[in-house]
Each structure stands twice: as C-alpha cells, then as structure tokens.
C-alpha cells in the first residue's frame, strides 16, 4: 500500500510537471535580443568579432530548434564607442526587451548600464572585468572572476617556469582596468620569488616606443609582462629585439593584448613569446572545432582571439535561462520574466560553454580556467592551463 502511494505521488508530480511545461506557451514568434555593441569607431574590429560570434550562436541555436521552439535573432545596436549614443540606445532597449547583450566597451557600460539596472533588465556585459560588471549586479553577470582571484595564480605559474627569472618589469597602459590587472600580476610574481621592478607607463597616445624600452632595460629586467594595447606591444617587442633581447619566452602578453595587431604588426618578431587568455584553440570538441573552422574561414585564417567566444556563450546562457525557467516572452509579465532570467544566469551551474563548463555564484564565475601559450609562426602552443578555484 505504501509503495502504491509513493508511486501515485510520483506519477502525479511527473504529470503536473509535464503539464506545467507543456502549458508554458511561448508568446513570441521570434526572440529578439538586442546587442549594444561598438560596430563603428575605434573598437569596431572587436565589435565586429563579438557580433560575428553572437550571430554564429544564433545560427547554431536556430539550427537546433531555436529557444523554446522559436527562432532567435540578435539585433546589433551600434554605440560607436560613444556614451552619448549608448545611453539613448539602452533607453530604447529597456522599454520592451526581455534581456540584452552588451554594452561594449567600458565607457558605454558605465553610462548605459545604470539604465538597465534602474529598469531591472539583465544585460550581459561579457567582455568586461568583474570589477566593472559587479557594480551593476544583479542586472548583469561577470564573465571573469575578480582580479585578485585570477591573476596572481597566473603570474605565479608563468614566472615559475623560469628559474633564471629574478627581476620582472611591466609595461602598463593607463586604460580602463589594465593598471589593476597589472597590479594583480604583482602578487603572483612576488609569490614566485621574483623582484618586481618599477613599471613603465605606456601613454595611450604613444607613437614611439624606443625610449620606453630603453627606460625599462635600464632596470635590467629578465622578465617582461605587457599590459597594453596589442599594436603597441608588437612595436615594443620589435624594439626589445633590436636592442638585443633574446629570451622571448620571458615575455608575457596579457589577455587583451592577444589581438590581431599583435600578430600582424609583430610578425616573426613575436615568435617564442608567451600570452595568456581564456580561449584555448587546441581544445578538441565537435562544437569548438566547428566554431573555430567557421571563425578562421571568415577571419583570413586567424584562430579565434581572446574574448571571441564570450558573446557566443552569453547567448546560449540566455537560451538556457529562458528554457529552464519557463519564460514565455509575455509582455504583460516582462518584469517577472526579466528577474527569472537574471536570477538563473547569476547562479547557473555546470553551464556548457563553447570550450568548457563553469558555475556561477551570485553573478561571479567560480571555476573558469586560464591558459598560457607560446606563439610560434602566428600559432599558439599550449604551455599551461591554470584552473582557478571557486
């Protein structure tokens, strides 16, 4: 009798759950997700890459049946890297949208995200740091852990490869979070027993780099970390080589420097240097391989850059949130459904990203890996994977 009762309860629960799922009727014929992106202006090359990967995600989702059975379309909204434009566009978006992607980059995030917060709409700023994103919790999620959690272990792992590396110097450009990233490297370098020399500030508008390199070499470093713009890094590495620098693997380029100009400007002169980022092109999975092949086809054979997968994953996270929480896209329940998506994304567990799976805790990713590579002939060879602890 007891067994029969338990069975009965289970059947009822299953039926209720089944009926409940079936009753969630999607109210839209197409999910439209705006993406506040910088499609023109000085960061257009980044913006077009993010747009490409988001469109790719939309195509993959639609080929697999869409979101809750309905197709998704990502609408690129250009902010032109201009806070003035970004705010008006965000003000338009928050009126009706369920959720959005972006903004990009930081000045626009700072100007436009308060509008999303005030209107309680999740907007995933997947390319900025925790330090920016966390100011707008719970209406965004961070794509990276805080600097003190991710960079010290990374810098330590890099420095520990070389027993002869005693003195490390950093080239730092005062742009957005870069000085803070450089500062976070210091703790790891010290842990590895390296003496951290006085950093060299790279002016944002610098055009000649010889004097900066000479200033750095005067301090007799045997290891260098670059935390500045990719093109400037390439030019400074050329200057270093012309001044007799030989230990190429004793140079580490930070994630934001792992961008097209590093390779195009650096050419063969960057052979042997190490870079770190969040994308490992050597991962072998059908999903990643398909993404990589398509990316290379559309980007003159270049492998996906750092940050190129972020918005791909962000769209999939939105898809998962909509489907798992039964969001229907009903305009009359806009507020409630926005909250459901935000709550889901902030604490999603075992999210299957393009390259790896991860957990979120209150908007913060807890177990994402970082990779150190060596560059040879424009290609990356994995040196180390650093797993961050939650």
């Amino acid at each position, binding site marked *: 009798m007891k067994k029969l009762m338990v069975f009965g309860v289970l059947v009822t629960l299953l039926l209720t759950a089944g009926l409940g799922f079936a009753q969630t009727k999607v109210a839209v014929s197409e999910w439209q997700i705006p993406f506040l992106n910088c*499609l023109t202006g000085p960061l257009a090359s980044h913006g077009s890459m993010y747009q490409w990967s988001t469109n790719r995600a939309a195509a993959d989702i639609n080929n697999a049946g869409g979101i809750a059975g309905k197709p998704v379309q990502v609408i690129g909204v*250009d902010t032109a890297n201009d806070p003035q434009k970004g*705010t*008006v566009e965000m*003000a338009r978006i928050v009126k009706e949208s369920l959720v959005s992607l972006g903004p990009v980059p930081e000045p626009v995030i700072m100007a436009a995200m*308060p509008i999303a917060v005030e209107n309680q709409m999740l907007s995933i700023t997947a390319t900025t740091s925790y330090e920016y994103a966390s100011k707008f919790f719970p209406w965004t999620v961070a794509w990276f852990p805080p600097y003190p959690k991710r960079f010290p272990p990374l810098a330590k792992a890099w420095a520990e490869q070389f027993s002869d590396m005693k003195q490390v110097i950093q080239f730092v450009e005062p742009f957005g979070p870069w000085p803070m990233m450089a500062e976070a490297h210091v703790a790891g370098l010290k842990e590895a027993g390296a003496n951290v020399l006085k950093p060299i500030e790279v002016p944002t508008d610098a055009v000649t780099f010889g004097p900066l390199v000479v200033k750095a070499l005067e301090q007799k470093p045997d290891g260098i970390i670059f935390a500045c713009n990719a093109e400037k890094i390439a030019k400074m590495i050329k200057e270093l080589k012309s001044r007799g620098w030989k230990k190429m693997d004793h140079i580490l380029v930070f994630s934001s420097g792992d961008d097209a100009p590093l390779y195009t400007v650096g050419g063969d002169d960057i052979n042997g240097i190490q870079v770190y980022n969040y994308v490992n092109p050597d991962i072998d999975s059908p999903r990643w391989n398909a993404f990589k092949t398509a990316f290379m086809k559309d980007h003159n054979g270049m492998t996906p850059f750092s940050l190129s997968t972020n918005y791909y994953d962000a769209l999939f996270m939105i898809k998962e949130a909509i489907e798992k929480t039964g969001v229907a896209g009903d305009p009359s329940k806009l507020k409630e459904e926005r909250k459901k998506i935000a709550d889901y994304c902030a604490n999603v567990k075992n999210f299957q990203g393009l390259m790896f799976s991860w957990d979120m805790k209150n908007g913060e990713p807890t177990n994402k890996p970082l990779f150190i590579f060596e560059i040879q002939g424009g290609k990356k060879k994995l040196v180390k994977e650093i797993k961050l602890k939650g």
Partner: protein
Amino acid sequence: MPLPLYYFLSITAVNILMSWALYLPYRMAHLHFLVVANMAISGYTAAFMVLSLQLPFWLALLTGFLLGAIIGFVVAQFIGDAPTFAVVIVGFTFIYITRTVIENTEAVGGTMGLFGLPNIGGDPAVHRWTILAILYGLVLLVGFLIHRFDHSQLGRSASAAFIDRDLTTSLGIDIKKLGILLQTFSCMLAGGCGVLYGFIYKSFHLDYFTFHVVGILMTIIFVGGYKTLWGTVLAAPILYGGPLLFPPEIASWRIVIYGALLIFVLVLKPEGFITTRFVYRVEALLSRKGTKQSLSTNSQEDV
C-alpha cells in the same frame, strides 16, 4: 517622460551649453579647449564630494561652477590676450594633464572611473526632471546672457578683436580684460556642465572627456554657425539626434557624414548655416512685425 527622450534632451542641452562655452571665447578668436578639461575637473570633484564626502548634490554643483570659474580665471591671466594658436595649445595641454592626474588619482577611481552616483531627490523620476530643469534653465539663462552680450558694446569689441587685435587695442579696448571675462565665464559654464554630464550617466569615466567631445563641439559650432549663438541651438539637436534616427546601414557612416558635412560647410558656407546676417534679418522682421502690431493697437486705441 520616455527614457530615450530624456537622454536626448539632456545630452542635447549639455551639447548646447558646452558649444556656447566654446563659442564665447571664439567670439574673439580664442579656441578655448580648456573647457573640456574643466568639465572633467569639476565633474570628478563633484562626484568625489557626493560619493566620498557624502555632501549634497547642490553643493557639489555649485562647487563645480566655482571651480571651473577659478581655473578659467587663473589660466586667463596668462592667455587672456594670447593668439589663437597659443590658446589651443594650452587647452589641449590641460586636457592631457587633467587625464593624467585623474588616471593616477585613486580617490576618483583612476582609470576605472566612478560608479553609482545617486539619484537627485532619491528617486529616478525626480532625478530626471531636476536634471532637465537645471539644464534647460541654464540654456535659457546663458542664452539670454549671450544674446545680451552679442548686442552689447562688449560683443562688438569681441567682434572687432576677432578681425584685428591691433586695431581693436588702438580703439582703447582692453583685449586682455575681455579675454579674461569670456574665458572665465566659459570655464564656469563648462564646470557646471561637467557635473551635470556625470549625473546624467550616474558615473564618470575619463573617456567621457576625450578629444571626441572637442570634435563634437567643433562640428556643432562650425556647422551651425560660429558667429551667432543660434547656430548651436540648431546644430546640437540635429547633429546628435539625426544619427540616432539613421538606419544601421547608414549609421556606420556617421563619422564620414560628419566630416563631409563639416568640409561642405567650411567650403560653401564658411560662417555656418546660421549667419549673423540671417539673424539680423530675422530680428528686423520680428521687430517690424512688433512695431506694426503696436502701431495698429495704438491706432485702434486712438479710434
């Protein structure tokens, strides 16, 4: 009020006021880019006062105006009668210096910027109406003052100095004093605008005050017309609002359109769309209408 309209109106007002801040010294051929640095200095100072010292917004706004005026006055002691080129160099240098100082000042967020400026009055709607009221109150007040200035002896002195400094000096006009007056007023206005600009966004980032802002203001002044205050009033909403209405295919050509427009205007209408002659004609037309109306009213009363 719809949110997009609020942002459009508030940013347009800032653009009008800032263009006037640039317009006034340019009346005597001073391209005074110090105003952009002043926006940043006053804005960051006000944000620090509100966020760190917990002082009220109104005090911070007042400080923003005062700080702008003080910096403008001190600098004007040295460049009040300087040639155009020197004033431009001083302005650019100040933008660089200001950026560097802010980048290296942790108390104002350094390169990260400042977040979480509070709503004025504790409520978003009150905040928005207050910002709009202040901004458009300022537009009316400053517009009135500039209008009076343009029609005053001082305004005519500035026009003379624009054309020939030596001749103006020989007429007994103290160019330096005039320069100090205009530069100080402009900087004071820019200081207040900087505070309000940050409170529109509820945050401060160094990239709000770049050479991009200089570009926008220059385009507004030169396309609208640099010889009257009305050119700015026409150009600011059109140049800012127009691209927002562009379809995405055209929007990506925004900068090219701006550039082409600027070249077109400089070549074909060097004074900009609204010229002094046009303003005088409109004023004459209005005053004639006014005279006719008053005459007819008087004659009716006589009957």
